[in-house]
Each structure stands twice: as structure tokens, then as C-alpha cells.
């Protein structure tokens, strides 16, 4: 009986360097989409708790990667920082070369809206809006005419096979359909990176497989897809797997498709 082997090859240096810095050989002429450099995130004032400790990571265009680790390993903190929903206590987070800490909230929000598409475990759809309205939310405040906005949202839903459900509210949709609406909302802005938090966590196995299949197809040469999960099976569907423990990157593995 053979054991499951996704064919991981450890990235030389990633698991050796305690700071998690990528080796110089990885730094090629292509600019990283997202770069964490010596990033720490500390919570608490009197008693400091290091959720992330001196982490460095580069995400390149076209990558399909997973960040995996047990509860408390710092995955969620990492997701917040990668998604520019949070700022590091120390270190630098760059998106397309831009230091996010140097931006004020409106510019940081714009950068987030333009560059990152989020998919959450609990779907996080706005309950009083239709599927179309939920997808349109990502296109608001972008000086897009309502008719064009609606058309783009509809096209995104159509791409995910939900055109017929455009007018349905979240409660009228199944879990798989809700997650696809969330996916449509994530891709409608044509972001540089899709950031998914346990994307199959609330789905049954059939829907989970379907969503993962869609995920693997979302990547483009310009776009990276990043999944944060504690599920190794889900993590293994990615071509790059970053493992975390106690707020540090402990392994950075790649496999050939």
C-alpha cells in the first residue's frame, strides 16, 4: 500500500533560515506581487504576544500556494497582513513594490480593493443583497457606471455558473453556491491575488472538490492564488505549500504540477 505523496520538494533555505527568508536564488527579475520582510505582529501592551515573529515571504505572479498550519500557528494573522486588513508591528509588507504601512487608510483600502480578492470560510455575503448585489459591492466607489458594474458582476457570476441565481439572496442559495458567489466577488475586480481563508471549511466534500477545482483554474500568469488552511489535503492541491508553526514559517515546499 503506497502512501499519498504530492511530490513536495523543500525549497532550499526556507526551512533552514529561522527567519523564513527566501534564498537569494528565488529573487529573479520578476517583481513579487506581495512581499513580507522581517514581519512581526505583536498583540497586547503589557504582556506582548507574538502572533508572527520575523517572517519573510515572497509571493510571485502565477503562483498557486497554500499556507498551512495548526490552530494558533499565525495563519490568520498572516492572512490579515497579506490582505492588508492589518499592519505589522515591525517589518515591511509590500504589494507590487509598495510599502502598505506608508499609505493612509483611503489609499490602503484602494490598494486592497484593486489588488486582492478575498474568499472566506463562512462566505461572508451581505444577507440583504442578491448574489448580483454582493458581487457588485466589490465594484463600488470605482467610478464605474451602474449599468457597466452590473454587467461585470453578472459576467463574473456567469463564469462561475451562477447567472441563473443572480437575483437570489444568500439564504436562497446552497453553501456551494454561496461560496461561488464569494468567488465571483473576489475575481470581479481582476485582482493581482486571490486570498482564501479555509475556502472549503464550510462545504461538504463534493462542493469542496468543486470549489478547489475552480480555485486551481483562477490563477493566471499575472495572478497568484493563496489559500490559508489547516487541512493538509486542501493544502496539497496547491503547487507551493508554506507551513507555519508558532508564528514562524517552518517549511516552504514546491511541487511540479
Amino acid at each position, binding site marked *: 500500500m503506497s502512501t499519498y505523496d504530492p511530490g513536495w520538494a523543500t525549497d532550499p533555505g526556507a526551512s533552514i533560515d529561522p527567519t523564513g527568508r527566501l534564498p537569494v536564488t528565488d529573487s529573479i527579475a520578476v517583481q513579487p506581487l506581495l512581499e513580507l520582510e522581517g514581519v512581526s505582529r505583536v498583540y497586547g501592551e503589557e504582556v506582548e504576544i507574538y502572533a508572527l515573529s520575523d517572517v519573510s515571504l515572497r509571493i510571485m505572479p502565477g503562483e498557486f500556494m497554500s499556507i498551512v498550519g495548526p490552530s494558533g500557528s499565525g495563519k490568520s494573522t498572516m492572512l490579515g497582513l497579506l490582505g492588508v486588513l492589518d499592519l505589522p508591528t515591525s517589518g515591511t509588507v509590500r504589494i507590487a513594490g509598495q510599502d502598505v504601512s506608508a499609505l493612509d487608510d483611503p489609499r490602503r483600502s484602494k490598494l486592497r*480593493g484593486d489588488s486582492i480578492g478575498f474568499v472566506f470560510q463562512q462566505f461572508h455575503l*451581505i444577507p440583504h443583497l442578491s448574489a448580483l448585489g454582493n458581487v457588485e459591492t466589490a465594484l463600488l466607489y470605482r467610478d464605474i*457606471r451602474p449599468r457597466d458594474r452590473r454587467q461585470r458582476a453578472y459576467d463574473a457570476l456567469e463564469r462561475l455558473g451562477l447567472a441563473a441565481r443572480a437575483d437570489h439572496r444568500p439564504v436562497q442559495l446552497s453553501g456551494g453556491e454561496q461560496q461561488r458567489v464569494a468567488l465571483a466577488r473576489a475575481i470581479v475586480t481582476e485582482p493581482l491575488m486571490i486570498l482564501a481563508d*479555509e475556502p472549503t471549511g464550510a462545504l461538504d466534500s463534493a462542493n469542496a472538490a468543486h470549489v478547489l477545482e475552480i480555485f486551481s483554474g483562477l490563477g493566471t500568469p499575472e495572478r497568484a492564488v493563496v489559500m490559508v488552511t489547516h487541512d493538509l489535503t486542501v493544502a496539497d492541491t496547491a503547487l507551493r505549500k508554506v507551513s507555519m508553526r508558532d508564528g514562524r514559517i517552518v517549511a516552504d515546499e514546491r511541487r511540479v504540477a
Partner: protein
Amino acid sequence: MSQTRDLIGVAWSGLTARKVRTLLILLGPVIGVASMVGAVGLTESAKGALQVQLAKLGTNLIIAQAGGTFGSQNPTLPSDAVRRVDAVSSVTSAAATTNLSGVISIPVQGAATYYEAFPVPVRAADVNLPAVLQVRLIDGRWLDAADSQLHLRSVVLGSGIAKQYGYLPGETRTIRLNNTNFGVVGVLGSVPLDPTLNNAAFVTQWAAKHVFSTNGKPNELYIRTRNGTTQATAGAIPTAINLGGPDQVSTQVPSNVLAAQAQANKTLQKVALFAGLLVLTVGGLGIANVMSISVIQRSSEIGIRRAVGHSRSKIGAQFLLESLFVGVLGGALGALIGIGVVYLVSSLEHWVVEIGYGQIPIWMGLALLVSVIAGLYPSIKAARLEPLETLRLG
């Protein structure tokens, strides 16, 4: 411009999505503005009605009453009081009445016990009394010179007494006044300037003297003056009547009472306005409270919006705009309800509708201001919400 349109759309959909909650927070500005519009409208309409009534009745009627001396039971005026008053140049007409104390009026057989216990005032009146009062007869005729000359025992009923006696228009009715039969010849219309006349029965001065053996001295004089001289005449009348004698005379201008009533309505208006303001303030607290809870309930929505790129200021503006809509809608709805109430009550009370439309924008603006101030804290709270905390990642 397009971003503003987006913001308006988002805020509007936030309000319409939760209809019950929206209705609840609308109550404050609606009731506040409605009560202010209603309070001012109703008091102005009532005042308008009083002014119309005053204009109809005239403000130039004076009632002169015998003050008597200390301890006197039925103080009287001199017998020629009307002539003395007529001598005042500003007086245009005057009529006297005399209270016939001890006269019991019994309208029907068998009612003696009741009317002996609760006697109806009987007055002797001059023939020109309705003319001086400017009141018409609602049935039959008033007492005239022929009644005195022919010694007819005629009686005219006040409108209230006619109703109490169950007198029907045109009915031939005889009532007993101290065991003497009197024929009802008419019913005097309502006298708003002296409602006591509505509950009296009137006989001629001849009957007072010869049937009830009075001394013919009147107790009260109703005096009309030239317009614009009423107050001065009222001051001169006591001297004109007593001419330095011992008789005490007091005068009153009944229209002043109505005018005072209008003034009292003004006070009521202020109280109602204050109450409206209080409701508006309490409504504002309600808005702040409900919207603060709403921010917590909608924290996931706020997190999603932040995640898709909406800035803190956009989130804050969204919630502030929702409060602003509440103020605008509540103010407009309140004004409409207030106007509706004024029209309804005025039509029921037969008042002339008086609505200060010029003041309505001020109250609506006040409702808007209160709503926006109330929405400030929840908006800031919403803007400051950390998306990471609301989205519960991982």
C-alpha cells in the same frame, strides 16, 4: 459624483433592507415633527376660530353689573341706569336685565320637585336685548312692546334651557313661573359673550314688576359702544351709572376673555412645542441607540466592505447617510402627519385651518440635525471597526 451616487445607493439599501428597524428609528423624528406641526397648527387654528368668532361677535360689548354694598343679597343698579348709560357719547345701545330671585320655573306637570331643588334663573329683559347682544332668535320671537302694553304673560327661553325643557320649534308650550302660566313665544340663540344667558328664561319688565312684584331695578346692563372706544367706555360706565351715588358698579368686556383664551392657547402651544422638542431629542437618543446596535449586528457587512476596498471614511459616511435619510424621511413624514392632524381636527371642530408652512422647514431641519448628531457616534464606531475582528478569519 459617481462615488456619491454609489454611497447614496448603499445607504438607502441599508435602510430599506431592515424595514422594521428603520420604522422604529423613524418614530422619533416623525412624532417629534408631527407634534410640533400639530401643536402650532391646532393652536393657531383654534385661535383663528376664536378670532373669527370675536370678529363676528364684536369686541365692543360691555357688561355692567351691580356690585352692591357689603352684605347686600341682590345688588341692583338705578332704575334709570339705561338712560344714564345712553348719555355716554360713545355708547350706541344698551339693554337691561333683572334677576328675579325666588321665581321657580316648572316646564311640565310633575317636575316641580326637581326644579324647586335646581331652579332655573328667570330674568326680566328689555325688548332690545337681542339687538344689543347681536344674537338672533332660533325660534319664534323676542319679547316686544305689545307684551307689556297688553300685559301678556310671555316668556322666551335661552337656548340651553329650551333644550333642557325638551322644547320643540313651533311648539305651543306653557310653563309655570311661581304658579302663574306663561306662554313660550321664542328661543334665544346662543350667546357666546355671556353663556349664562343660555340657561335663563326671560320675561318682560312689566311681568317682573306686576307679576313678581320687583322694584324694577336692573342688575345687569349690556352696552354696545363705538368701535375703538370700548376700554375707555368700560372705565367711564361706573361713574355714568352711579353719578357719585352709593351704588357699586363693575364692568367687564367679555371679548377680553376670548382674547385671553387665545393667549392661553399660545402658552399651550409653547408647552406642546417643548414636548415635541423633547420627543425629538428622545427620538435622537433612540436613533443613536438602535444604530449603535445595528453597527454591531452589521459588523460582518462592515468587514466585507472593508475587505473589498471600502475605506473607513466610506463606511462612516454610509452610516451617517442612513441617519440623514432617517432625519429627512422622519421630518417629512412627521410634517405630513402633523398637517393631516390639523386638517382633521379643524374640520371636526369647524375651525379655519391655520398652518405656519414657513416654520415646517425649520422643524424638519431640526429633525435632520438631531438625526445626524445621533448618527455620528454609530458612524464613527462603524468606521473604526477592525475588519479582522469582524470577519473571524481562520
